[in-house]
Structures are given as C-alpha cells and as structure tokens.
C-alpha cells in the first residue's frame, strides 16, 4: 500500500518535471522564432489574403513586417491586398535561359524584419539555389530568429499525401515535411465552403478563365473539395489536440504516459519504400515515438549502382520526414533488422507488403516470415504499398547494362562444348556432362547468378544439340536423356547457387574487413598524430587509399588544412562556403545530403561535445550519388577524428599554458633585473648631467670627464637593451636564422670593430689560420656571440689586460676560443654560466643582466653548435664556441682560367 507521503512526493516530482518541460519548450520557442502557418484545404480559400490582412494589422501596431514573397497568381484582388507593406525584391535566377523569380533568402536575412511573409511553402526553388525547397529557407529564417508567416494547402503535407491521393486521385509532387507543421507555433485554418469556392472559381477570382474551366473539370469537384476540407479540419483538430496535450503537460495534469516506443522501418531499393516510410512516420507520430529507417546491405551484388542511389534517396527521404537513418551490414536482411532493433530497443518494425511472386518466398525464404518468427516482443507491421507512379526516386542516368559477364558466360559454354567434342569418343559419354558442369561452376564464380542460370540452360541445349543422338538436332532419340538433362540442369543451378552465395559471402567479408581495417588504421595512426596537419596527412594519405575516394580535412574557416597532398584537388570558393556552413550548423551537407547538395564534395562536421573542430570532405565520384554504404564508415571516422582533434587541441593548450607560465617567470626575473640594472646607469647619468649643469663651464677637464662617463653609460645601456631584445626574440621563437657562407675572420673583425670603445686600447691577440674554411651561419648571430664573449671578458678582467682570440678547424667542426687574463671562472659557477640572468659571484657588483652568455648559447644551439667554458692553465677564463663544418661551395673566378 503506497504511503500518502510517497504519493505526494511523486506528484511533486511530476509537477517539477512538468515545469522543467514547460520552461524548455518556452526557451526553445524563444530562441527559435515563431512560425505561423495559414492552412487551407485547396487553392483559392483566401490564405494569402488572410495573411496579408493580419500582416497589415501588425504593421499598424508598429511591427516591422516584410513581404518576402507573395504569389498573386495574377489575381488583382490579392496584389491590392499587399497595399502599403514593404516588399522584398525577388531574386532573379537564370536557369537554362528561363528567368525565374525566387524568394531572396539572403536579402530577408540581411534586412532582419520582425515578421517576414513567405507564401507557398511547398515551392521547389530554382536549381542552384542554396536550399532545394522553400520550406528549408523558412527553417533558416526561423533559426535566424525571424518570425515567419507562410501558407500551405493540406494536400501538400507529406503525411497527407497518400490519403489525398487515395481520395481525390491527385498526386502532388511538391510536399512539405510534417516536421515543419510540428514546428508551427500557430496554425490558422482558412476555411471556405465548397459552394463559395466554386462560385469564386467561376467568377475568375482563383484562376484565369481558361485555366479555371480545366481546373473545375479535374480538381474542383464538389466531392474533392469536401474531402480536402475535411482533411484540413481534421489536421487542424489534431494540432489543437497537441496543444491541449502540451497544456496538460505544462499544467502537470495527470494522464497516461506513452510507453517508450521506437519504430524501425525497413527500406530497400523498391519504389514502394517511400510509402512504407510515410506509413511508419504516421505510426510513430501516433505513438509519439522516435523512428529510424534502416537499409540492410546484405550482399554487395544486391545493391547495384542504381539501387544504391535509390536506397540513399529513401534514407534521405526518411531523414527529411524527421526520422533517423541507418545502414547495417548483415548476412540476411532479417539479421540486420533484428540486430538494430536490439540496439535501438525498438518496439515495432514496419515492412512493406511483398511485391514479388509467392514462389520466390518459397524458394529463398521470406523476409517477413523471418522477422515475424524471430520477433520476440517486437510488433511487426506489414503495410500496404501501392507503388505511386510519380514516385520514382531521382536516380542518376541509367547506365548501360554491363554485358561483360554475359559475354564471358557464352565463351565458357562454347569452350566447354569444344573440350567435350575433343574428348568425345575417348572418354565415356557421361564424362562430357562433367565438362559442362565444370563450365557452369566457372560461370557462377566469375559472372554472378543470372548468367549462371542461363549458362545451365545453354549447356543443356548445347549438350543436346552436339552430343545426344541424333546429333545436330534438338530431337532426343531416347526418353531417358530427358532425365539426364533435368539432373544436369538442376545440378548446374544448385552448384551455381552455392557458388554464388559463397562468392557473395567473400565479397561481404571483404567489405567488412575493409571497414574494420579502416577503423584499425584510424585508431592506430590517430594515436600518434600530434598536430592538426598530421591528421590531415593521415586523412589524405592512408585513409583515402583505403576508402578509395579522395578525402580532405578542412578547417572550420573553410580552408583545407595544409598538407602535402592538397595540391591535386579542386577546392573552390563554393566548397569553402559549404564547409563553413557545415561547421557552423554542425550538419553534413554537399553531395548526397539534404543541404547544398550541388558540388563534388560531401562535407561532414568533425565535432566533439557539440563543438565543431574541423570538417571532413569526401569527394564523390563525378555524376554519382554518395554510396549509402559509405555513411557508417564516414560517420565512424568523424567520431574518431573528433576525439583525436579534441585531444590535440587539449595538448596544445596545455603546452601553451606551460609556455606562458615559463614566459611569465622570465618576465618576472627580467623586470627585477631591469629595475636594478637600468636604473643604476640612469642614476649615474642623471648625476653627471646635474653636475654639468652646475659647473657653468668653469672646469673644462671635469666637463670632459663627466661627458665621457655619460657616453660610456649610454653605450652600456644600449648593449643591455640590445641583449634583452635579442633574448626576447629567442624566447618567443621569433629568431629566424639567415644563414650564409661566412668567414670567421670577417666576423671576428666586425665584432672587434663593434667593441672598439669597450676594448679601449686593450691588446687583442688574434690568431686565425689563413686557410680557415667558410662557415654556414647567420653572420649577425655569430657576430653577436663573439661580441658578448668579448664583453664578458672585458667585464671580468682588469683594463689593459690582453685578450686572445684563436680559431682552428677540427674534424667536422670549427672552433673559436676567446681567452682573457682575468681571475677566471669560479669552478662552482661553470655549470650555470649560460643560464638566463645568472651572474657570477663577482658579477653582481659589475652590472649587466647576465643575459650575454645565455644568448650565446641559444644562438649557437640554433646553429647546432655549442659553447664551453673553462679556465686556462696559466690563469684567465676561456670560452670556446664550436660550429658544425659543412663542405664549402665552390667559388669561381671571373673570366678565364688564368687566375693564380
């Protein structure tokens, strides 16, 4: 017995859930602008006029209303109703010489009105437009936050299509997915009685008189009008029901909750698949359940090229109706259905009524039978499907049937006959049959099932004609031969059937293998990818090879990620635009999809947790639909790529955080160094200048001394600032080496020239062998290294003490040593000398940032060289730099060879 407090607890929770749902619905409606749908039973009921009148009322209230597009059908009455409302100029599209006026979607998006009026929702846009259908334009407007008012007739609603066709016998080509109706926040039914309508038709208010007469005979029959009116009323009543339901939920009115249902619908290449899909959608709608369309790729040969295109079309159709689509690989269709049903927890399976003759089920087993037998707790719906003539899926141009297997089959049968003729008389008569059977097996292996059946028949005929007495005729002398023929034929059929099945299984296994191998490659290689370009190389390299269709990785900005394989593909501005669209919407687009379907590429967003990181572009072969069997592979791939890219992004972020922390530390050290070491000479400068200002030119000697000291302080500061800049350039990775062949002698010369003032007449003993080879290095960098070492030597040795510079070539490298006669390095400091901001125990008193040697080391490391410190045996520090030696280039003399 439930306790009362438990009851109230669950009621409270339910109430809270209801509130949450109401809030979510409210939010969703607020971000997605309102859609107002004017629904009518048939043309001429006055939808457009009603919409315009309402719009004028809104405009009068100060709302910014824009007439995006209104079809007047030449009715003066309607165009008068537009009145003062601002109209959007139409977009003119030139399609094969015909100028078509289309709704200007971008114009409407740009003007951003409060409300935009778009008439005739089911309209199909001119080829080459961004969206194939006008309702897609409307969805885009809504997504952009613009309220849309639009009109539609009931027979154009996708799920009403079949009913309308049954009742009136009229099938319309342009339909609107029911999802759009579901999205409408308000449905306004515009109703008129059939009598009124016919009256308006006759007085020319709907069509021009001659069109009106034809329309009255074909469509505007009282019976039709009544039926359509009823449908429109019922459809609106359903909507009202929905709204009541929504209210009940908002208000937490207790009611029965639908059990969680999921409808699975099986599609094939058969033209009736569309009707099956629609039936499934109606069923799912009634149950308020999600639904999925499934195509099972049983065996490769079952889906020929055209069939693949049709299956793709049917899956896309299901998606356009609001369902999901899946492709499964399985041994049999029933296997595939049961596997997915288990995975999705489906409760109902919808299959079409078989259209093939009954004997085929007897011979090969029936899908429905299989499914029904294995359906544990699964409800199976078999729906009636009347193939609608207008409903052929837009398949690409029919290709000529491949005649090759047939030709091969003929050759094999002829060969068998020749061989049989050769052994005729040598071997017993019955052995001839074996030759033909062998031929049948060969045909079954090479040519597939249909040719092998014909081969069986042909073999029997040839055997009869050539070998069975009387020879040269089809007549049979002995009735027993008939039994021989029958056995021969049946054996042939069975063998070829078995062989064919085996062949299909092999192909199927190979396909599975390919898919699995691709996944394995992706997993293995992606783990090693450290940068975006690595992933791009992988996609355009091994993955592309395995998939057999060009693949590229595209940045969210629409540019191809640079990689070595980018050169050979055509990537137009339009492709860029599509990629950006895909990245922004997080939806796939391009070839074989619902959006922006022109172009040669199919674009799939590579996303993780709703954030698009890149776009995968798969090239479709010219003039071909995207193979539906590729979708699961591509989907799986984008998933794996998404994870890899997210990992790379995270790693890069971590690295940059680390770099930033390091830089911050460097900055802190530098600030403290600057505050001390630049201020000290500044203080000295200020002091000197103050003194100068006071001496009034009295003491000439003092003035000269002070000025010389000022100059010296300035030089010192300049050098320190230069070092700081150099270090920051190295730290930020902006150091670009400009390597050339240089002579060390020249570099030492320019360095000494720069240090002239600093050296102040110190003896410098330079010993460079005249045959020193050229070094491939950045002249400024190595000059800087030498300057810094000289500066360091001058700082740590007394004025007047000599410097020694010597260079020599060692195996594979060239070395330059600079030695002074000072006290030498402290042995304990040797390891730290080249650290940034390190100053020896002595050095603290002598100023400078301690950057000089750190810069030397960094510059030399950039040259793949090194820096070593040591003390000379007779005292004094000695710094040796080493640079790699490369074979020097030849130097020609000008003119002739009389150079000596």
């Amino acid at each position, binding site marked *: 017995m439930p306790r009362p407090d438990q009851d109230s607890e669950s009621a409270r929770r339910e109430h809270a859930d209801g509130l949450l749902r109401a809030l979510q619905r409210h939010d969703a409606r607020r971000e997605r602008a309102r859609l107002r749908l004017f629904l009518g039973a048939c043309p001429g009921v006055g939808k457009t006029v009603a919409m315009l009148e309402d719009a004028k009322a809104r405009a009068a209230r100060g709302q910014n209303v824009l007439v995006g597009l209104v079809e007047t059908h030449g009715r003066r009455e309607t165009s008068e109703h537009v009145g003062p409302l601002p109209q959007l100029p139409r977009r003119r599209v030139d399609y094969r010489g015909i100028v078509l006026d289309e709704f200007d979607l971008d114009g409407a998006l740009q003007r951003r009105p409060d409300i935009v009026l778009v008439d005739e929702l089911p309209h199909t846009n001119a080829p080459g437009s961004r969206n194939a259908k006008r309702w897609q334009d409307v969805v885009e407007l809504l997504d952009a936050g613009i309220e849309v008012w639009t009109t539609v007739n009931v027979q154009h609603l996708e799920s009403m299509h079949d009913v309308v066709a049954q009742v009136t016998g009229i099938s319309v080509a342009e339909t609107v997915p029911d999802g759009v109706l579901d999205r409408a926040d308000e449905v306004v039914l515009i109703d008129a009685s059939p009598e009124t309508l016919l009256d308006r038709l006759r007085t020319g208010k709907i069509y021009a008189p001659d069109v009106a007469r034809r329309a009255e005979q074909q469509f505007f029959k009282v019976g039709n009008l009544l039926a359509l009116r009823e449908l429109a009323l019922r459809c609106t009543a359903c909507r009202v029901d929905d709204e009541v339901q929504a209210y009940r939920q908002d208000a937490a009115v207790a009611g029965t909750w639908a059990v969680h249902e999921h409808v699975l619908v099986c599609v094939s290449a058969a033209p009736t698949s569309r009707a099956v899909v629609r039936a499934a959608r109606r069923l799912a709608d009634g149950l308020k359940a999600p639904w999925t369309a499934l195509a099972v790729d049983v065996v490769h040969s079952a889906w020929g090229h055209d069939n693949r295109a049709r299956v793709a079309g049917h899956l896309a159709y299901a998606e356009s109706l609001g369902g999901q689509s899946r492709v499964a690989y399985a041994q049999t269709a029933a296997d595939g259905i049961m596997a997915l049903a288990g995975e999705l927890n489906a409760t109902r399976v919808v299959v079409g009524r078989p259209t093939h003759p009954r004997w085929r089920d007897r011979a090969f087993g029936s899908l429905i039978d299989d499914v029904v037998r294995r359906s544990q707790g699964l409800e199976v719906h078999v729906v009636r499907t009347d193939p609608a003539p207008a409903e052929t899926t837009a398949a690409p141009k029919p290709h000529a049937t491949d005649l090759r297997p047939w030709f091969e089959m003929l050759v094999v049968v002829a060969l068998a006959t020749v061989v049989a003729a050769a052994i005729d008389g040598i071997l017993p008569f019955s052995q001839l049959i074996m030759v033909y059977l062998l031929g049948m097996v060969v045909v079954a292996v090479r040519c597939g099932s249909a040719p092998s059946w014909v081969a069986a028949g042909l073999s029997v005929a040839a055997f009869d004609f050539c070998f069975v007495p009387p020879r040269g005729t089809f007549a049979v002398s002995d009735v027993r031969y008939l039994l021989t023929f029958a056995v021969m034929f049946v054996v042939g059929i069975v063998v070829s059937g078995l062989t064919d099945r085996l062949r299909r299984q092999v192909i199927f296994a190979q396909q599975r293998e390919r898919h699995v191998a691709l996944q394995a490659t992706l997993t293995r290689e992606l783990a090693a990818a450290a940068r975006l370009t690595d992933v791009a190389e992988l996609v355009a390299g091994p993955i592309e090879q395995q998939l057999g269709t060009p693949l590229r990785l595209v940045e969210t900005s629409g540019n191809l990620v640079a990689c070595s394989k980018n050169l050979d593909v055509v990537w137009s501005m339009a492709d860029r635009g599509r990629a950006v669209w895909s990245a922004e919407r997080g939806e796939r687009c391009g070839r074989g999809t619902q959006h922006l379907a022109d172009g040669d590429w199919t674009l799939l967003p590579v996303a993780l947790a709703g954030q698009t990181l890149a776009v995968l572009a798969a090239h479709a072969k010219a003039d071909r639909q995207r193979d539906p069997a590729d979708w699961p592979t591509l989907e799986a791939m984008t998933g794996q790529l998404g994870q890899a890219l997210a990992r790379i992004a995270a790693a890069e972020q971590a690295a940059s955080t680390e770099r930033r922390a390091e830089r911050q530390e460097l900055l802190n050290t530098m600030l403290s160094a600057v505050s001390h070491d630049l201020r000290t000479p500044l203080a000295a400068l200020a002091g000197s200048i103050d003194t100068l200002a006071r001496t009034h030119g009295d003491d000439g000697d003092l003035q000269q001394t002070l000025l010389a000291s000022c100059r010296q302080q300035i030089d010192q500061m*300049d050098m320190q600032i230069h070092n700081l800049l150099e270090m920051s350039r190295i730290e930020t990775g902006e150091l670009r080496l400009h390597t050339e062949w240089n002579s060390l002698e020249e570099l030492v010369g320019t360095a000494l020239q720069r240090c002239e003032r600093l050296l102040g007449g110190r003896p410098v003993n330079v010993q460079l062998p005249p045959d020193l080879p050229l070094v491939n290095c950045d002249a400024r960098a190595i000059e800087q290294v030498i300057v810094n070492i000289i500066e360091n030597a001058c700082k740590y040795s007394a004025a007047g003490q000599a410097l020694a510079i010597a260079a020599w070539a060692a195996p594979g490298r060239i070395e330059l040593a600079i030695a002074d006669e000072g006290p030498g390095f402290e042995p304990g400091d040797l390891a730290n000398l080249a650290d940034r901001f390190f100053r020896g125990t002595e050095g603290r008193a002598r100023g400078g940032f301690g950057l000089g040697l750190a810069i030397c080391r960094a510059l030399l490391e950039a040259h793949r060289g090194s820096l070593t410190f040591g003390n000379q045996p007779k005292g004094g520090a000695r710094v040796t730099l080493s640079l790699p030696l490369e074979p020097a280039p030849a*130097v020609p*003399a000008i003119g002739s060879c009389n150079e000596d």
Partner: protein
Amino acid sequence: MKTNTVQPQVAILVIEDDPGIGHMLRLALSAEHYCVNVATTGSQGLTLAAQSLPAVILLDLGLPDLDGMTVTRKLREWTTTPILILSARGQDADKVAALDAGADDYLTKPFSLPELLARIRAALRHHAAPILSSPRLQVGDLCVDLAGRMVWRGGTEIHLTPTEYELLAELVRHADRVLTHRHLLAAVWGPAAMEQSHYLRVYMAALRHKLEADPSRPRYLTTESGVGYRLRTEFSRGG
C-alpha cells in the same frame, strides 16, 4: 681633421618621424652651419625634397606611411641627391633594400654625431665629384692605379688576380660608400651571381691578406655586417 672654413649654407632634409631625434638632428646640424628641414612622414618628405632641393637627405626607416625603399625609389626617379639611411638594429633587410634602391649610405641608431658628420661630408664630396678626380687613389700606405691596373702597398707592388683586382677596383670607384653584396656580386661576377655571397667572403679575405696589416682588424676594407663592404679613405677620431 676638423675644417674651420665657413661652408656656404648647405641644405639638409631630415625625414624622421621621432620628434626627439628630429630635434637633436636639427640642433646638431644647425650648429655645423647646415640649413635643416625636418619632415615627419614619407610623403611630406617627398614634397619637401622637391621644394627645398636639399644637398643631402637623411631618411629614417620605419616611417608611419611609406617604407624606406619606396621613398628612396620615388626620390631616385628625379634626383641623384645623396640619401643617408638612418636605421635601428634589426632592420637589415629594409636597409639593404633601400641601399639597393639607390640610397648611398646608412647609419645604425644609436649613431655618434662625428660619424654622421663624416658621412655627410663624404656624401657631399662624392656627389660633387662622382668620378674620381684622378685614376689613382692613395690612402694610407695603399695606392691603387686604376689606369695602369696596379696596386702598391708601402711602395711594393702587390700582385692581384683579375677577380681580386675587379673587386678592389669596384670598391675604389665608390670609395667611402657602402656597397651591398648584391651590388658587388653583380658588378664583378654578373647579375646571375647576385645571391652567391660566399664568392665575396673568399675574395675579400684574399684581398685583406694581401693589403691589410692585420686582416682580422681591417683598416681599409671594412665589413658592414649584413649589408656589404666599404673601402675607407677617411678615418674619424680613433678610427
């Protein structure tokens, strides 16, 4: 070396956007009896150059509107007035581009005033007499006779290979001016060799070993790092 003769008023145009340096140059050059105009942008500089017809132009790299090479090129469309580039460190590429576009010399900031004045004097002298007054150049113990293709050092004749001689002759013909690597390579080896700077390293080293007392601390054939070479004939204090 200071000349105390009063020079006639020589006009100098300073194109420099930094007011501090502009002010300093105006003071320093006026004190040397030059007539100084200062422009703060490249386009203003071009206008002032056309109006005041200066004898020397000091051009700062890194102007707000135009780069040094553009200004040099536009000036060279109509005038041969010497152009001295003032550059900061790290502007090597711009500097060389401006020199290749026709600028005559450069100085790196911070420069010393005596050095600047010496360069201005050299520029004025060369502009007045673009071709050597005599085919013989005597500097220190070095003597080059372009007419006789002979070179002496301290009275002894020095034997040079044809390539060495061509290189030296090009430097002598433009004595005291900096010649870029590309200029020298094109003049001696031909335009095809303009990127082969290692030819110069080898032959300059050979020349120095033959002509300089201490090849590692050259007195005449000086290196301008990252830019080119110069034959010096004038030595400022301490030089």
